[in-house]
């Protein structure tokens, strides 16, 4: 009994600093603000997550008389403590490979942000201030600043693209369930290759930027919105509508990428529009142009076989 008490005490002491570290990463009060529901509904998922575990267990069992037996009470308590320890261990190990706390930042969105961002992706010409606002050296959550990159729109866009591709192939009488998987893995492979190519070129040009890999993944995923608009227009109104809407979305995403990447890749002076000479600035400008120019090419490449 004493041995297990010290053992669980030791494990608790080891796990507690880790939990504190994770909440520090989400920045304390900022963490609760990160998932505060700004649309006025019930409390956010982060406060709900820790309450989930004891909640249903307490609610499910009071009415059952068979479990008032002390032995099964003990067994239930032991089982629940084992389960929570196992879950903490899995979380701790998973956090080493996939930075879950960093990923949470990219999914802190709300409906207003998604609406504004989708509007920006299709019509970026009226927006004036493209800078991401910072708060004490960490970028602000996407729900507060419309310029911050997120992963919600790319993820949803990818899944919608696969479904729309299945629909489009169905209208050509070429559909089979395996084809959905083929489309999904093709698009995923192209996405991974594009992100790797951009990372390689960023390394070669030695740009000092705070763009992380996940940011690049988010920017590369924004083109799925344009692709979906083009394919749906083509399905509804025929090939000319497909080409027109794809052209519009290609130009829009080109302008969007240039305006977003300009602030991150180019030096301060060049980003403001003043002409700065020098081979390095020219190289950075070429890099921005080619990243933005690759988007329309991929958009056409991934959708032309859907509208025949």
């Amino acid at each position: 009994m004493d041995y297990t008490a010290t053992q669980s005490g030791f494990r608790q002491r080891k796990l507690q600093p880790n939990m504190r570290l994770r909440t520090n990463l989400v920045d304390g009060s900022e963490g609760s603000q990160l998932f505060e529901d700004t649309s006025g509904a019930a409390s956010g998922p982060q406060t709900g997550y820790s309450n989930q575990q004891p909640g249903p267990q307490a609610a499910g069992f009071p009415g059952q008389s068979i479990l008032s037996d002390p032995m099964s009470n003990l067994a239930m308590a032991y089982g629940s403590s084992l389960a929570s320890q196992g879950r903490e261990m899995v979380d701790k190990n998973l956090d080493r490979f996939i930075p879950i706390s960093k990923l949470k930042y990219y999914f802190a969105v709300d409906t207003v942000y998604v609406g504004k961002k989708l509007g920006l992706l299709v019509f970026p010409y009226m927006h004036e201030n493209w800078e991401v606002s910072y708060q004490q050296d960490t970028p602000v959550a996407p729900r507060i600043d419309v310029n911050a990159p997120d992963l919600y729109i790319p993820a949803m866009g990818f899944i919608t693209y696969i479904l729309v591709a299945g629909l489009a192939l169905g209208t050509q009488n070429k559909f089979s369930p395996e084809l959905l998987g083929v489309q999904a893995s093709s698009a995923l492979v192209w996405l991974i290759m594009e992100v790797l190519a951009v990372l390689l070129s960023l390394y070669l040009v030695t740009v000092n930027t705070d763009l992380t890999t996940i940011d690049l993944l988010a920017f590369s995923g924004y083109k799925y919105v344009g692709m979906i608009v083009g394919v749906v227009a083509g399905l509804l109104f025929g090939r000319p509508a497909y080409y027109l809407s794809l052209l519009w979305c290609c130009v829009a995403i080109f302008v969007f990428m240039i305006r977003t990447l300009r602030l991150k890749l180019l030096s301060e002076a060049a980003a403001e529009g003043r002409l700065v000479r020098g081979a390095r600035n020219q190289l950075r400008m070429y890099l921005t142009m080619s990243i933005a120019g690759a988007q329309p090419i991929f958009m056409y490449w991934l959708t032309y076989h859907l509208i025949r």
Partner: protein
Amino acid sequence: MAFTLYTLLQTAILCTNAIAVLHEERFLSKFGWGVDHGVGGFGDDPGIKAQILTLIRSVRTVMRVPLIIVNSACIVLLLLFG
């Protein structure tokens, strides 16, 4: 067009093998890309050629042993399963 994750893995292995076999003395020096040509600029701008040479050297150093393992596994799997 029908890419799978398996083809991505194959591509990655082939490309890494291709970078790892570029020998410095026998091959790269003939193009002026040898050991002495890489470390030129000490400023904040190493230049593309120096970055590429650093990349090739680091791939060769880091990936030598994992590539041996992965290539052996690939050979065995291809012999067994075609």
